[in-house]
């Protein structure tokens, strides 16, 4: 069920109203039921997979808590969870990659697996693994009940595309129960409205069409079109994914829960490492805590540190999809992180104000990120190279796509405005609080935003990150 679909609107309305009407003790069980129903309504058969993943891992967690050899249970949890993920997500890639070798060496030929990717499996697998590792590390004081653990993994607002939650973030909230307050409700509605508008108006209506045209066109020789498509895609994927995250956070707030930030104006990053502290934050933190640091992090010499960085980013790329293009995308980010560190990185201060002197660095990081996106978006490696070649080779026979340039500039300005607004939001809220005209203004703006999003929803599409 897509967040921008009418059936989800009905589901959400029913779920929020019933949830709020229920006594507090029944809310979590209700939410678990609603989450499993949400997943079932996509493809019923895969509910079994989700439930099996949760049940088996919970049994292993219990074993881990009681056993004198908890490592065995952790290994079992990792093997089982990654085994499912690997089977459903990477089996086809593995077979298509190894088949030519097997055919050449052993004259072996087999079918290429054609499995439908279970919705959100990459996200919930990482959430499961994170909790198992935390439990092994002794960070989980008491094991939650099965139903609470199941709700932590399957919580419907973030089940299919994150943010990836930690047990320490969410389980205490579940234990307390959703805390519904007027402030959270208002903030939730705003996030829902802004997220929907980002997705439907910006990503789908204004950006996707041009991106698809240029990425799918062959024989176009106008570099300017490719540059504009490059920037358009950068903003499309940002508004698509951050729009989803805003909606997920907004829905959680309506249910009384806080979900973590996943984006902090990533295209205003002054360095590659800052970018990864602003883009898909919950994933990069997960990769740092459960992959980079266990590999040794920066504690085993500079060469090992750089190798760890590279490996983390390559695997982070592969996490996004079973395609070598994603590995290359991760590799590019790994390479620039390695270079940045090798050149002597500066400490990242996310709250440091931006100045004119930051513009060149922001420009360089933005363009490297944009070029890496080509491998993320293109159908295959050749298409990506072809796209990059066209950025630099060819004549501008078509003229300039002024309107799309205008849209890209508008998105860039909006990105700047997001930063300005985010830092001033508490003050704005405090100023509007309690004023009748403030209530009226908020209602009117939010209503207009949602109505506009609905009126252009005819061209809506899937969320890009749902495929992961």
């Amino acid at each position, binding site marked *: 069920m897509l967040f921008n679909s009418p059936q989800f609107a009905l589901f959400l309305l029913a779920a929020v109203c019933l949830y709020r009407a229920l006594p507090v003790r029944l809310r979590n069980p209700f939410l678990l039921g609603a989450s499993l129903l949400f997943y079932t309504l*996509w493809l019923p058969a895969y509910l079994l997979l989700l439930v099996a993943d949760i049940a088996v891992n919970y049994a292993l967690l219990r074993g881990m808590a009681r056993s004198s050899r908890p490592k065995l249970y952790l290994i079992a949890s990792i093997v089982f969870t990654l085994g499912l993920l690997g089977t459903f997500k990477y089996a086809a890639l593995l077979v298509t990659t190894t088949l030519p070798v097997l055919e050449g060496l052993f004259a072996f030929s087999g079918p290429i697996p054609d499995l439908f990717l279970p919705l959100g499996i990459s996200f919930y697998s990482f959430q499961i693994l994170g909790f198992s590792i935390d439990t092994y590390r002794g960070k989980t004081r008491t094991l939650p009940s099965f139903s609470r653990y199941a709700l932590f993994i399957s919580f419907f607002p973030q089940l299919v595309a994150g943010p990836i939650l930690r047990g320490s973030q969410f389980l205490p909230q579940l234990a307390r129960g959703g805390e519904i307050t007027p402030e959270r409700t208002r903030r939730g509605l705003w996030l829902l409205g802004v997220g929907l508008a980002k997705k439907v108006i910006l990503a789908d209506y204004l950006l996707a069409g041009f991106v698809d045209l240029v990425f799918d066109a062959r024989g176009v020789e106008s570099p300017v079109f490719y540059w504009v498509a490059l920037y358009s895609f950068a903003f499309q994927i940002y508004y698509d994914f951050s729009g989803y995250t805003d909606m997920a956070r907004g829905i959680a707030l309506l249910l009384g829960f806080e979900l973590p930030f996943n984006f902090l104006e990533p295209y205003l990053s002054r360095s590659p490492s800052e970018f990864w502290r602003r883009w898909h934050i919950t994933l990069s933190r997960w990769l740092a805590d459960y992959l980079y640091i266990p590999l040794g992090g920066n504690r085993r010499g500079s060469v090992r540190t750089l190798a760890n960085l590279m490996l983390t980013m390559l695997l982070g790329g592969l996490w996004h999809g079973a395609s070598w293009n994603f590995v290359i995308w991760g590799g590019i980010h790994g390479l620039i992180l390695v270079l940045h560190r090798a050149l002597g990185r500066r400490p990242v201060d996310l709250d440091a104000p931006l100045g004119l002197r930051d513009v060149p660095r922001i420009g360089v990081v933005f363009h490297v990120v944009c070029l890496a996106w080509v491998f993320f978006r293109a159908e295959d490696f050749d298409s990506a190279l072809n796209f990059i070649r066209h950025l630099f080779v060819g004549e501008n026979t078509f003229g300039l796509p002024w309107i799309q340039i205008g849209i890209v500039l508008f998105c860039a300005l909006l990105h700047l405005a997001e930063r300005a607004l985010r830092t001033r939001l508490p003050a704005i809220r405090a100023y509007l609080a309690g004023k009748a005209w403030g209530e009226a203004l908020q209602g009117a703006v939010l209503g207009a935003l949602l109505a506009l999003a609905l009126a252009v929803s005819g061209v809506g599409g899937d969320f890009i990150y749902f495929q992961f």
Partner: protein
Amino acid sequence: MTARSQQNVGENGPGLKPSRGALLFWFCFALSALVVIRGIFAGVANFPPQPWQTSIGVMNKILPGLEAMGNPPASPALVRIAMLGDSTVDFYPKNQKIPDRIEAALQESAPAPPDIQITNLAFLGLGPTAYYFLADRIAAQKPDLVIWQVSLTHASERWRRSLLRPQLAGWTAPARIPSALTLPLDAIGLTVDELLFYSLIVQTGQAERWQDWLINLSRVDKARGALDAWLGNSPKGGPEKNFAALSALIRLTNLSGHPERPDRYNDLGEIDHFGSVLEGIGPEHPTLRFIAAAVGVFSEAGIPTLVYLNPINLEHLDAVGVLDKSAMERSVDAYRSSVIDSGGLFLDYHDIFPDSHFTDMAGHFRHDDEIQTQTQLAKKIAGFISENKLLGPDRPTREEKN
């Protein structure tokens, strides 16, 4: 009362009474949303609606057709036939569509022509999945015979992707929904929530309102297209060049046209048009499972179903080098077994016409003074019906048919 439970009721204050601020917020929210939506829809009201983009637009034709079929029939002697298919059945001038020609051919072929009424339920782009969702409604009219045109293109990924009209799932009989869930809905881009949502709309009688909403949304799209075109054709300089460039770009994305024959696809186009059928498919293919399920619904209701495999332009497929005859035969066999195993009758006409009998890349038929493809096809179908006494009182049993 604990601090937390106080917090949870604090939303609406004691006794769930909303605060004045909250009331003002929601009033302005609703008012502003209404004004914006009304304003946008009023602004695009003059743009032509595009009901054919919506399934409900399709149903505007199908539902009156079903009603016209009548159950029970106007006279006991009347033989009622329901004709199902896509544009290759329906996309011709009035009274010259395939059902009209079959009716005429049946009148000619029978020694004692029966009183026949063929109801044309075919429509542009209506394929097996759509007819599966409509099967119970058609069966409820108890036609004496169902003639159903299916095509090898119906199994292509493109057909499933672009011509599905998933909203038609809303017309599935409620009792059929559990068995519909066992079919590969995901392969046709339909999720369970969509199936239930569309059913809810239809069952609660909101289909027309939903259609109005969709038509308005299609007008918004149309308005944007018109704005693009206006800017593109503007005689003045300025931003219009952007749109002329976009139009050129759109043309460049059309990679499937044949370089020498504008009315035919090239090899890429044909591969896209026919999809995995060119490589050979089996009865487990999602499209064939929907065909089998739909024929099964008619068989359950005791309605004989004659499924014919539409003629395709094999000569052109061969000419552009994408025809593997053995793979194609595998696909045809899979169609045949899907129909026969579900209790239907199957006619394979996929290879009966040469290239000259087709007018366009979509496989529509040529019909002029020189070549009258529709009539030839209709006569073949009518001939089979007469020879096998499908309309007479001594109709063959299911065992005899197969």
